[in-house]
């Protein structure tokens, strides 16, 4: 059907020809920074840890930093001078790179291969996320920031010269210099995360301490001359990350096939406390069977992957490969070393002497018990442990690994039921603190819990499941670019609904490239 443009249309066109025939763009886009009565996004500072920095797949690197959630929020607000401490690919931290995506084989880039790209910026970065940072680091409340920076290069990367002066060696000094109009404050994950990923061995920040550190930090942000709008983020449940959930179910089904219903695992001693009133002091309870199919009972860490095939290995079995026996013992020796219980020379000697190693471990365990419950109770424990007629103890590597109470799976590879309870209680206590600050809350915990309970969510046509390669990057702890995009999207949603920033651009998760780190042979 033939259709002619209306005459008016033709006249407009003629006019357009005359007026615009040579200019390139018809009109300007409004590129002004989003600003409302409640929030001015001109100067946005993001305080946090690796989740704010945009770390993924084990490293902080440029191609991931581009999609950090604060960078995505800043772009959506049309902020064009949002500076981050960019690091060239493959970054700092040892990027996990896929060598075969079908087989699931990986390799790790050298930890320090990436180079800082804008270390010369003559003002603080807007993204002040320091991977590994604790809540105490905001004001350096515990005075240990400098010592932490000795073993963690990210403090130096983000804070740079501020580290030279004890007065400015904290995150707050950066905000004082920036005088931000909007602050996203997302600290607290690392105060509990390492406890969970170490199978309950590493310490966590006590909830009362966390409350002090956190409220002081928020008070300091509130007292800035720029009186910024503040967004605080709740802490997701650390026991639902793939680092702890991906290995167990696979292991469980493998063991079931072999007719092994459970493995035995060494547990931690726990004094009764508000987080876990019962405590854990019964000698028999030190070694427990672990029902792997029940995630409330035990979670196997991703770091256990290498040791799992050795289940059932016995030093007394002549057919057992030597390196399997050695590998099991070496993990114990490393544990003793890192606890400072033995020297390097002793470590080498123990590797050659099974009996000596067993005895050293017996003493170490009794020593730990004594530290926790005092010497009086330790004596009773020691006699029970060393009594070979009891089911539990002493160590004996001639027994099958992880199947005998005398040769248990190492504590650091399993977060057991008690430790899960403690971890959950810590997180919920932290979150009460965070929610009590009077700041605008972004419920990262709730968002993540919804994904976990539903199994996955689909946003902008992209399905995100709480698994590696989907919501999570390949380290099993940190989100992928699209996972971060979801966090950015939720942040924008709250900025719109609670702070009236309606002009913010929406984020379409499908527009964010997957950016899977790979090593290619060609």
């Amino acid at each position, binding site marked *: 059907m033939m259709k002619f443009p209306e005459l008016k249309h033709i006249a407009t066109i003629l006019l357009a020809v005359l007026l615009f025939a040579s200019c390139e*763009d018809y009109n300007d*886009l409004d590129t002004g920074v989003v600003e409302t009565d409640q929030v001015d996004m001109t100067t946005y500072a993001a305080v946090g840890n690796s989740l704010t920095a945009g770390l993924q797949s084990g490293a902080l690197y440029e191609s991931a930093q581009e999609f950090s959630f604060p960078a995505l929020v800043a772009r959506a607000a049309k902020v064009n001078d949002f500076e981050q401490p960019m690091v060239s690919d493959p970054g700092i931290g040892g990027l996990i790179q896929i060598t075969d995506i079908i087989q*699931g084989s990986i390799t790790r880039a050298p930890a320090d291969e990436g180079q800082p790209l804008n270390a010369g910026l003559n003002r603080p970065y807007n993204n002040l996320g320091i991977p590994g940072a604790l809540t105490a680091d905001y004001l350096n409340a515990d005075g240990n920031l400098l010592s932490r920076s000795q073993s963690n290069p990210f403090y130096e990367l983000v804070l740079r010269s501020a580290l030279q002066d004890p007065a400015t060696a904290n995150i707050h000094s950066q905000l004082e210099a920036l005088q931000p109009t909007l602050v996203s404050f997302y600290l607290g994950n690392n105060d509990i995360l390492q406890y969970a990923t170490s199978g309950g061995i590493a310490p966590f920040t006590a909830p009362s301490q966390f409350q002090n550190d956190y409220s002081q930090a928020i008070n300091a942000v509130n007292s800035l001359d720029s009186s910024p709008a503040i967004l605080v983020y709740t802490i997701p449940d650390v026991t639902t990350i793939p680092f702890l959930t991906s290995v167990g179910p696979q292991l469980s089904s493998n063991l079931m096939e072999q007719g092994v219903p459970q493995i035995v695992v060494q547990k931690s001693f726990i004094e009764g406390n508000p987080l876990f009133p019962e405590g854990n002091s019964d000698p028999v309870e030190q070694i427990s069977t672990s029902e792997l199919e029940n995630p409330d009972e035990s979670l196997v860490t991703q770091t256990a992957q290498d040791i799992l095939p050795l289940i059932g290995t016995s030093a007394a079995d002549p057919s057992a490969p030597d390196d399997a026996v050695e590998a099991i013992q070496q993990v114990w020796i490393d544990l003793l070393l890192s606890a400072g219980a033995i020297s390097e020379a002793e470590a080498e000697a123990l590797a050659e002497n099974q009996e000596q190693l067993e005895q050293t471990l017996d003493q170490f365990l009794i020593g730990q018990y004594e530290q926790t419950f005092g010497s009086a109770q330790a004596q009773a424990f020691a006699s029970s442990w060393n009594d070979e007629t009891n089911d539990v103890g002493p160590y004996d590597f001639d027994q099958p690994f992880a199947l005998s109470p005398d040769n248990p799976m190492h504590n650091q590879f399993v977060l057991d039921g008690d430790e899960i309870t403690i971890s959950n209680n810590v997180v919920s206590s932290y979150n009460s603190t965070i929610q009590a600050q009077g700041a605008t809350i972004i419920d990262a915990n709730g968002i993540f819990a919804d994904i976990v309970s539903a199994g996955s969510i689909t946003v902008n046509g992209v399905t995100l499941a709480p698994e590696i390669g989907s919501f999570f990057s390949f380290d099993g702890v940190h989100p992928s670019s699209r996972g971060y995009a979801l966090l950015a999207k939720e942040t924008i949603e709250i900025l719109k609904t609670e702070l009236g920033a309606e002009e913010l651009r929406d984020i379409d998760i499908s527009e964010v490239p997957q*950016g899977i780190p790979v090593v290619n042979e*060609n």
Partner: protein
Amino acid sequence: MRKVFLTAFLFLITSMTLAGQDIYEAGVRANGMLGAYTALANDASSIFYNPAGLAKANGIEVIGGATFISPRTTFRNTTTELGPYGLEQKMDKQTFTIPNFYGSYQIQEGLTAGLGVYVPFGLGTRWDDDWIGRASSIEANIETVFINPAIGYTLPDFGIGDVHIGAGLTILASGSVQQRRAITTFVPEGEFNLEGTLDSPGYGYNIGLKYEPVDLITFGFTYRSGVKAEFSGDAEFTNTPDELFTNTGGSTSIDLPASFVGAIAVHPSEQLTVEFDYVWWGWSSFDALVINFDEAMLGLDPQLEQPQDQTTNIRDYKDVYQLRLGSEYRDAFVDGLTLRAGFTYDKTPIREVRVDPTLPEADRIQWALGVSYTVLPELTIDAGYIHIRANERTIEDPEADLRGVYNTLAYLPSIGFTLKL
């Protein structure tokens, strides 16, 4: 078996929107009238514009020339996932030389045969390697060369005025396609390059009718059939996982559209002609671009489960029309000087959701000027200039490849000669 990593939604779709751009600039004289030439057509270039017009070409005619097309496009993204809002990115400045050549021989009064060579589809776009839309396209090119033998015949006088008819065989003799884009699914990014050449000639036909009931008015009508263009060549993957992609051969076919023109020319005086053409393009023939690969690849399956050897890019073009208005003024001021002017309004065949940077198409307005001067009785020099300004096109559809604002203009100077022996 459950995959180790839950990775899905790898897409590898090749876009060749570029094929959606016809080049109507097949003769320098017609260029001056912006292609409103189907009724007036009376020289060897009638082979393209209306083979019936060939009947009016006397003796031996040789027409040659070239149009130099310089498109200029800017893109400003309105999404912010990949870069700052409103950042202007300019397409690389390229100039495409589009040649044309026609020869005709008058066998007898009212019967002329001829041969034309022209390029009705053939342009390219190139953006910076690291530009924001690199996952859509960095570089795309298409070229088609047609050879068109034709014949024009004046029907015996029935007493209803002059009636001319014509027909030709349109042979797609040579052609190539190429596209290169980044694969941002991976870090570091990979690249995909597809290059193909025409497998075998494609055939079609064109027919025409020209009717002059009275001296004052000429009607013209022409129809060109569609032509199937089959390309095959190489698909090359750079910096991508071997377990997903392999360098292999690939092939595709594009249904170049049919078109027809209905035209009326009015001759108020011996010297002046004003012509209006309605041009219809059957672009709905271009419903999808399917690429077939010689080897199946796992990377082509969004679920990474079953190797695939085909990708399909839905194009779903619309049939469109163009309105072309042109005028010619002969022996203006001095003998042998002809002046021309033209104006058109083009509708784009590409729906918003299908617009991508291989060809940022929009409805367009164009104006043209042309001049011919007969320097010798046998030799005329022709020149023309067309200016194209596309309407600003804002892509907002979330399903679209790249959302933002495109602005395009193009300069098309042309020069040629006409020999009448």
